């Protein structure tokens, strides 16, 4: 008698996205499995100045946070705009996907996504310049993420260079 109606069970905010970590060690099947069981979220579009404390305060609203790993520029070892948040339970992480994803932290809309689990090394940006890949190629000016994208910076005249 108890029927599960698909139309009524929509919980799309906790769906896994299309992104797959290309550096994942293992096959696609293993990755899917880990994503479906994971208690860890990737958090993107952070300001470089967002602190672990701020992340902890916000993400604690969906449950007890086990640990936070701030993403770092591979060369400079400074925050480069992403982090991992690991919860003690999957249920708490799901609440974060439903209610914290797409809201603001430090005035920026942040994005959360399932992560297969933190492994040493994954806290570093994978862009050529040391930060995240997205900051290599973007054309806009974002003062909270180092200004212009790295590629765009190379083509921009720096201030005060032309002095006649």
């Amino acid at each position, binding site marked *: *008698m*108890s*029927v599960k*109606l*698909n*139309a*009524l069970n*929509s*919980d*799309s*905010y*906790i769906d896994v996205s299309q992104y797959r970590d290309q550096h994942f060690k293992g096959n696609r099947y293993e990755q899917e499995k880990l994503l479906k069981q994971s208690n860890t979220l990737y958090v993107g579009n952070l300001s470089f100045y967002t*602190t*672990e*404390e*701020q992340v*902890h*305060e*916000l993400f604690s*609203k*969906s449950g*007890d946070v086990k*640990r*936070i*790993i*701030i993403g770092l520029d591979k060369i400079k070892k400074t925050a480069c705009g992403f982090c991992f948040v690991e919860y003690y339970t999957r249920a708490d992480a799901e*609440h974060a996907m*439903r*209610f*914290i994803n797409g*809201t*603001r*932290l*430090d*005035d920026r809309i942040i994005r959360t996504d399932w992560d297969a689990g933190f492994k040493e090394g994954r806290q570093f940006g994978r862009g050529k310049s040391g930060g995240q890949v997205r900051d290599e190629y973007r054309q806009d000016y974002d003062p909270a993420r180092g200004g212009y994208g790295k590629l765009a910076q190379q083509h921009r005249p720096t201030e005060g260079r032309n002095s006649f």
Partner: protein
Amino acid sequence: MSRRRHSDENDGGQAHKRRRTSEPIEIEDRLESLICRVGEKSTSSLESNLEGLAGVLEADLPNYKSKILRILCTVARLLPEKLTVYTTLVGLLNARNYNFGGEFVEAMIRQLKETLKNNLYSEAVYLVRFLSDLVNCHVIAAPSMVAMFENFVSVTQEEDVPQVRSDWFVYVVLSCLPWVGKELYEKKDVEMDRLLSQIEGYLKRRVKTHVPMLQVWTADKPHPQEEYLDCLWAQIQKLKKDRWQERHILRPYIAFDSVLCEALQHNLPPFTPPGHMPDAQYPMPRVIFRMFDYTDAPEGPVMPGSHSVERFVIEENLHCIIKTHWKERKTCAAQLLSYPGKNKIPLNYHIVEVIFGELFQLPSPPHIDVMYTTLLIELCKLQPGSLPQVLAQATEMLYMRLDTMNTTCIDRLINWFSHHLSNFQFRWSWDDWADCLTVDLEKPKPKFVKEVLEKCMRLSYHQRIVDIVPPTFSALIPAEPIFTYKYADESASSLPGYPMSITVSNAIKNRASNEEILTVLKEVPNPNQEDDDDEGESFNPLKIDVFLQTLLNLAAKSFSHSFSALGKFHEILKTLANSDEGKLHLLKVLYEVWRNHPQMIAVLVDKLIRTQVVDCAAVANWLFSQDMAHEFTRLFIWEILHSTIRKMNKHVQKIQKELEEAKDKLEKQQHKRRDSGDDEDMDKNSEDEEGQLEEQIERLQEKVESAQSEQKNLFLVIFQRFIMLLTEHLVRCETGSVDISTPWYKNCIERLQQIFLMHHATIQQYMGTLENLLFTAELDHHILAVYQQFCALQL
């Protein structure tokens, strides 16, 4: 999964014969979709959609009857906000196929019995309401519905049952009357009058001790916080006075009256309410939250009065929509804003009121707090021209009434408001609240602003807060969250621990081992004793002070640094804190260094508990200690305490689960052995395994008992401390002939209530001990009242 027969692929020439009709699974999905979606936005009218769907379903009945029955039963149970859409559909089907109507009614009765058996009381309400509306659709005969109601109300005559049981049966009957009262009165007015009179008698003799504990405000103005049954009774009384004229509910079946009244009706089978079972969990009583009335919506449609049945129906439906869609905030917001009949009511006000009603509900909101914040943000996005203003108006009203608001609700308001502001650049007209600067900072209004600013700072940074408030608010700005190091510089050189702090600091920086550091620490003199014992292992507060201050100073940079430090020197910390006094002093030092950063204190206490450096009771004792008395009314204290209790509860649950799993494993093992027959080797292995499992179970059993004992002790400590503090205050006020109602007292007594409410499920287990040891008749009646109110909730 293809059902294509093999010959399809091989027999090209024959392919056209195997016309691909839709596969059964696809048809079932389609039926589900059609049924679930009927009533949603459409280019055609609701009536023509219902007509069309009835035709489709009628045609599918021969092949898909049981599926259709199941879907309809499910939507009846899970989509109460679309009640009348589906009752109309069932009515049309019944008119076309009498047998189907009968089978549907039978299926619904079966489902009702199941939901009651499984403690799904809110769903059971929706099912009964559905059945009652089927009277309006000529599916069920009115007299048989009245008979069911009479059986429900007869539960009020039962003896020795929890009040919440008979409450529920009365509630069901009353809550159906907005839909079916008119029809039932037309057919059976004598019986209905008798029913209502019985209900009235019951409501008069009901005990209502529990009400104060559930009220959001202690004041009756401007809106009384009515007990839910009292409010509903008043609404039904008014409806009756209005001769059951009800104009809000959308009733599609009216358009089909000519078709429906031709249908033959079914009689409900006699339904005896299931008897009371000891493990039944009836719904908790509640209080109706009201913050708006017709004076608050300045233009546009008027808000229905508090005792109008329209108000009841609107609130019910909005609650149901949230219940259905809470996981998907965009859908939820859209569904709320497209409420049918929204043009005749100030919908934004109803929505905001219902949402705050849930957020402030005691003991706890139906859904996780953060959901409401995000839902309100979503609603603001969809109605940017109107909803933010209503929300601002609501916030203003809530601020005005802080003096009488329950402390737990103020906590939630603080969390909601600060989080909300952080999504809108912290824009707020703080000057409007300048009145809070003129009163004692311990009063609710300035306290609220202070706590809000502290939470805002946690989501941003100190300078931001300085920038967003007017300079007049500087007294309410939180302290900068920086470390306070006792041994920071040479000005501290006269302190006894100073030289050692430098030694320890260097040792840590030079990556000395734990043993080396412990050796260094042995040199720290013990101010508590004249002669040090040889091992230096007794409680030495200076040792703890020097080590912890130094360590935390080196690790002060971030949470991660501090966690890493606690992890690295875990052994030392355990050694230093190996007594109750040691644990207490550790926490005291922690507070001293991080007193300007309550967030850091909370996360470090959490880590210390999880790594078993301190136990939960130590934390409780520390929070209630004299040293922390000046912080007693701050929110972070209670967040730490409740987090500590939750960790204790989760710990007990975890071991209980391990025990259950081990027991299951043993049972399976024993079955396997019984079934395996006479293989001797298998037998021996099996016996060994069973032996191991039995040992494990014994160990786990002891672990569970020990954990439960620790849990009980934690609550005893907490309640004892509350009683001591409150009694002291009450006695002092009495002897000084001073009014007991200070801000401190209000906070303290409501914090005691909060312990009961937030952890009621766990506390239930220890009621006997609590009553015998602590909440005895000798206690001051102010304190005892809290306990009695809790008992009256019959949770």
